[in-house]
């Protein structure tokens, strides 16, 4: 039953009626991570309702344009990830590799730009001066850490796919794509929370 050749991995996947174990594992990991973000965002608004004005005096309202544009970039990478899954199911390993590589480049650019914004914010207000700063940087930092984990997963996937397509790697690609859909969705929630005081 070991599927090592490209064609047989795709065949195993087509014959399977239920979702593979790896898929369930990722769904549950996403469930628990999503709850973490729900706790963070709930804490943001909990603290917001303890404080007026928000952000506190001396801190500018958050900028809107750049965070939204960057988030759009990240969300757009769901398309190449989705295309990679389609290609791999059709047995086109290198096409899948190319889509993942494209996604990786955009996602890495996103993280770089976000870190640039993050450092800029750090220079204008401190996480250790007000609760607003604390939750702002904690929320964004947690999100960026999740993007960084995704980049590591992509990098591993590109390495693994270069050596051939197995059933294991095929499931890996599917669940890593799922992880990115989750990160993209959370990115939207995080950015809306981030820019909320300006809206």
């Amino acid at each position, binding site marked *: *039953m070991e599927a090592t050749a490209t064609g047989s991995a795709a065949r195993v996947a087509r014959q399977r009626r239920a979702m593979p174990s790896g898929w369930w*594992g990722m769904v*549950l990991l996403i469930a628990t991570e999503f709850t973490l973000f729900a706790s963070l965002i709930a804490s943001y608004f909990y603290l917001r309702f303890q404080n007026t004005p928000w952000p506190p005096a001396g801190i500018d309202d958050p900028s809107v344009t750049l965070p939204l544009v960057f988030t759009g970039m990240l969300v757009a990478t769901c398309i190449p990830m989705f295309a990679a899954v389609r290609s791999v199911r059709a047995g086109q390993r290198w096409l899948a590799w190319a889509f993942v590589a494209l996604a990786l480049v955009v996602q890495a650019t996103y993280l770089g730009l976000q870190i640039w914004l993050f450092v800029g914010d750090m220079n204008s207000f401190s996480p250790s001066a007000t609760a607003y700063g604390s939750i702002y940087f904690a929320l964004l930092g947690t999100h960026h850490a999740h993007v960084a984990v995704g980049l590591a997963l992509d990098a*591993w996937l590109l390495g693994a796919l270069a050596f051939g397509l197995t059933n294991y790697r095929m499931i890996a690609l599917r669940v890593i794509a799922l992880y990115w859909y989750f990160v993209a969705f959370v990115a939207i929630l995080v950015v809306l929370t981030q820019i909320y005081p300006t809206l």
Partner: protein
Amino acid sequence: MAVALPKAAEPRIDRLDRIWEERPGVMGWLTTVDHKRIGIMFLFTALAFFVAGGVEALLIRTQLLQPNGTVLGPNGFNEAMTMHGVTMIFLFVVPISIGAFGNYLVPLMIGARDMAFPRLNALSYWIFLAAGIFFYVGVFTGNAPTAGWFDYVPLAETTYSPGPGVDFYALGLIFTGVSSTATAINLIVTMFKLRAPGMSINRMPLFCFAFLAVSFALVFALPALTCALMFLEFDRLLGFHFYDVAAGGDTILWQNLFWIFGHPEVYIIILPAFGIATSIIPTFVRRKMVAFPLVALAEILVAFIGFGVWAHHMFAVGLSQVTNVYFAAASLIIVIPSGIQLFAWITTIMTGTPRFKTPLLWIIGFITLFIIGGLSGITVAAIPFDQQVTDTYYVVAHFHYVIFGAAVFPILGGLYYWFPKVTGRMYYERWGQASFWLSFIGMNLTFFPMHIVGLLGMPRRQWTYPGDLGWTGYNVIESVGAYLLAAGLLMVFVNLAVSCFRGEHVGNDPFGGDTLEWATTSPPPPYNYAVIPKVTSSYPMWDREDRREDLVNLAQGRKVLEQGHETPASTTVDAEWDEILEMPSSSPWPPVLAIAISGIFAMVLLKQWIAAAVFVVAVLVVLAAWHGKEPQEA
């Protein structure tokens, strides 16, 4: 089942033995991914922490034996009290229930050959061990946390708790959370994917339903705790202000996040006990559980409603009256699923033909204690009453009846019940019954007077008390009870330890059990079942025809899967045969990864950020190596 193996089966069994053989000696244990070995490691590690938590409890009771006691002193008392709570909850009850019982029994009960993610399973254990050591490194270096297991701010902030004690607490809990989450996800996927073909979801044993509910509760409850602990560590290590009112933070934020986790955690503690009770009762009363589907639903409902009641821990905080009333009402709803289960257990026992062997005695003890703890629970759900008794020993009495009496008694009963399965030997029945009675009397002597002394106004979490308030007599009884209880528990462990070597050899199914684990040999082989068992009902061991058919299948080589390290996967709801999975075999990477992760936590504790980053890189390297060897699925 009498195992009269057909001749034709022997070469198949030999082949399975060869395929599933593990490395001998210590390396075998270090690299194992066998759920049974991992379960046993969880068991012994958790029991070691049970001893530690028990010693802390005895220190507390010795300190409070008489007024103005001097055994511990205020700081020592706070350390013992904090570590008692942390140890019992996070290092004993949760790991022994999901790690030991869940790991060992769930795959056996559903007719699988391993967990869905065997290497992740090993990682869960090594992380748990590392986290436990992490906590106790703090204790033995004189840095035990002193802010209580609930760790309220601002007491837990650096202003009032300088030194690394609370950092050991907070980082240690995030650390154990990783282990519990991994085990929970693993159990859910195992139950969804690896049930023997034929075990549709409605035929899954009630034990598994309880563990499914617990696992989901862990997946959704732990992040709130992780979030609260992250905030605390940001405050403590980096000078953030989540809980600092002067900078716009809020102390009640901690309490909300902590109890959003903390109340589901109570059900995480007790639901495995419900599962164990529903396994033991049918076997010893010789009848099927009453209201099987209702009990299954009730188990899941308990876990679900547990997420909506957290503020009943905060009635005295000063939340708005509307909030308090909502949470009081929600808390009372818990009575419904709890009542369904209680009445189902009692009716099953009363309408069956009970054999009052040791395991059933522990379960009857559990039912009694759960009723007492449940009734006192109803009293504290009443807001005005709770505001009177909050922070008194009344509350201590209530939650020890529930999370010691009701949660730990079935665990002890379960140790007796599955002892013959794990060892192939029988425990000493008379001594088993004596250990129950001693523990039961000790338990009630320790905790019942706390109701009274609480109503008399004795505050909890205080290191001592004056002698002229009429509390002394009760405290003496409580402390004597604690020593009796310790003697009873010691008797359990001596009984089991001696039986390991001297107990009478018994067959595979000495009690006439109802679930699949009794179908295989005692102890089970590494592959659990030589033939994937046929399942047509919720009580597969009582379906004699199916078990006979297994033997025929084995002789003819059907459903044996003797080509490799294989187990079947079924469809999620109907459990129709779907595919054959190639499972990973032993791997050195889980313990190595656990060491690398420990490095991250240790360096964060020491504020060595660069070293912590180096360990993050090490984790990535180990993960890449881990995935160098691919099973078909993992």
